[in-house]
């Protein structure tokens, strides 16, 4: 059942659940952050409306820097602004930032330990028709391996807004992963959010001991909850964690879930290698090894298609999550 303390959207299992792009929450959150703190500035590489930074640009044009199609310079310009006391947010598509400008992020932001916030829009395979060149499925790996970096992958538009506001208040370099497509809104304004904290969104009715733990991040949290709900009807006892912060990892929550359930399935719209599942595996391998299955992209590039077509083709559909659950349960026994 849905954890009532999470105050999730009561219409979560309805077919007509409202959907909005996760990136929209970033734009709204950035405007709120800018209202609250005049040190907040925005930089964009010729994708201002697409990445939703136009809200900040329209209200605070003097705090907006258009850098043109120059992602490498953009992040270093932001680093310079941070050195002078600003809290810069930079946006582009995740494929170009942190994709193209990775070394500049490493050296001028993280090595310098400056509070630049990197919002990578259009992340994941669900960008769809644009094709494989524009589908960033390596960005979590790229960012989480850099010291000092915080990595957040919000599950919906509301969580993206909260994450954006929250990260403006920390001194850490931060990567926020955003999806382009409309995504079901599963949280509400009242749902808890804290950087570095995993949220238990689903647990067995009657509070029984879970026999399987699903850890999901980003837009696929919705599918993970749906699958858990269906499998519960078949008698499976499942807990689902929404792991919106990939780094620092909520090791305590991950370890406890593995200890209770004895089997873990991770679900993410990202390469399996180096992604959220890998972060979970690193944690469990040293603390409490249990059988794991990874739902994600299996060392492949994407291609054009509708988001659902692609998620199914590349093994991240609801069917794949169910199969992973069944497989890991067999391995457990």
């Amino acid at each position, binding site marked *: 059942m849905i954890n009532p303390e999470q105050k999730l959207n009561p219409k979560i299992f309805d077919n007509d659940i409202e959907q909005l792009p996760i990136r929209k929450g970033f734009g709204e959150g950035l405007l709120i952050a800018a209202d609250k703190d005049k040190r907040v*500035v925005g930089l964009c590489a010729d994708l201002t409306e697409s990445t939703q930074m136009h809200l900040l640009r329209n209200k605070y044009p003097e705090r907006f820097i258009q*850098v043109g199609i120059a992602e490498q310079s953009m992040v270093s*310009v932001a680093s310079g602004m941070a050195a002078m006391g600003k809290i810069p947010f930079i946006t582009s598509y995740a494929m170009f930032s942190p994709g193209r400008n990775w070394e500049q992020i490493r*050296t001028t932001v993280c090595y310098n330990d400056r509070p630049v916030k990197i919002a990578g829009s259009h992340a994941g395979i669900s960008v769809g028709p644009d094709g494989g060149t524009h589908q960033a499925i390596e960005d979590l790996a790229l960012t989480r391996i850099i010291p000092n970096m915080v990595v957040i992958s919000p599950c919906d538009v509301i969580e993206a807004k909260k994450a954006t506001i929250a990260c403006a208040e920390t001194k850490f370099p931060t990567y926020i992963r955003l999806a382009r497509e409309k995504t079901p809104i599963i949280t509400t304004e009242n749902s808890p959010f804290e950087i570095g904290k995993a949220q238990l969104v689903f647990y067995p009715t009657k509070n029984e001991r879970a026999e399987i733990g699903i850890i999901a991040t980003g837009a696929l949290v919705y599918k993970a909850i749906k699958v858990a709900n269906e499998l519960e009807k078949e008698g499976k006892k499942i807990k689902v964690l929404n792991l919106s912060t990939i780094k620092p990892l909520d090791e305590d929550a991950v370890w406890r879930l593995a200890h209770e359930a004895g089997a873990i399935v991770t679900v993410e719209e990202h390469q399996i290698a180096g992604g959220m599942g890998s972060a979970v595996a690193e944690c469990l391998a040293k603390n409490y090894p249990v059988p794991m299955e990874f739902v994600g992209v299996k060392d492949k590039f994407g291609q054009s298609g509708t988001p659902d077509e692609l998620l199914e083709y590349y093994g991240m559909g609801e069917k794949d999550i169910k199969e992973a659950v069944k497989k890991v349960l067999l391995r457990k026994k």
Partner: protein
Amino acid sequence: MRSTTPLTEEKTKILFEKAHAIRQSIIEMLIEAKSGHTAGPLGMADVFTYLYFHALKHDPKKFDWEYRDRLILSNGHICPVLYATMAHAGYFSLSELKTLRKFGSKLQGHPHREFLPALETSSGPLGSGLSQAVGMALAERIDFGQTSGKQIVCLTGDGELDEGQNWEAIMQAGKEKIQNLTVFVDRNNIQIDGFTEDVMPLNPIADKWRAFNWHVQEVDGHNFRALDGAWTQALSVFDRPSVIICYTIASKGIPEFERQYQWHGKPPTSPEEIDIARKALHIVRTMGGKIRGEHE
């Protein structure tokens, strides 16, 4: 404080002396470290001396003084000259220079401000410094409009201009008409693989910057009066960023090493090389033995 008076004959002489003391420190650091870059640091010793001992507004006793000018070293590999100049200016003791490139040292092989907070930035991977300088200037403009009292100075190599990111930043600075940004390019014509015009031709280097709407000056990078004239002019330009292309001699001060790209990335190591370097600098430093050198 930033000096507003022109260089006097007397001050020029002091800078000349200081630059040679810094060159001697650089050579001793490199000999001790057994690795590091020789050509760039020796070639830029005069520019660094001019900036730290005449041009810039800064306070070695209070490195984080809010109103200081900002110096961003983009070509981090020439950091021996930065470290030596900072030590001579009083940021830390001269004795620390011998720890260059050693474990736990403030003086990392390429600059890292976590180890030496007085640095404005960490650098090494080429081509990122100018973007940061542009960002600093833009942040200043948000806070102070055109009235910022801080000068943002960025030092780059010439070979470094091969990096495309520089041209992104050069374009941005031109677009924004940033007035308190000055770039000093070390035009020594060498890079690791050879002469710049063989590896990747940069000429017409001045025209390139001009085409991006910069105020361009070309000077002898070893002539303090020329540097002072260019800096003074750069300060007076209010509608665009300035670049001062400094023609320098790689490994300046050691005739046997001068102008040779082979000395880009290595220190003197053999007893013969060490002897040549020490003798050459000693001769200049002591005016041919007429005065006492700092390292004697």
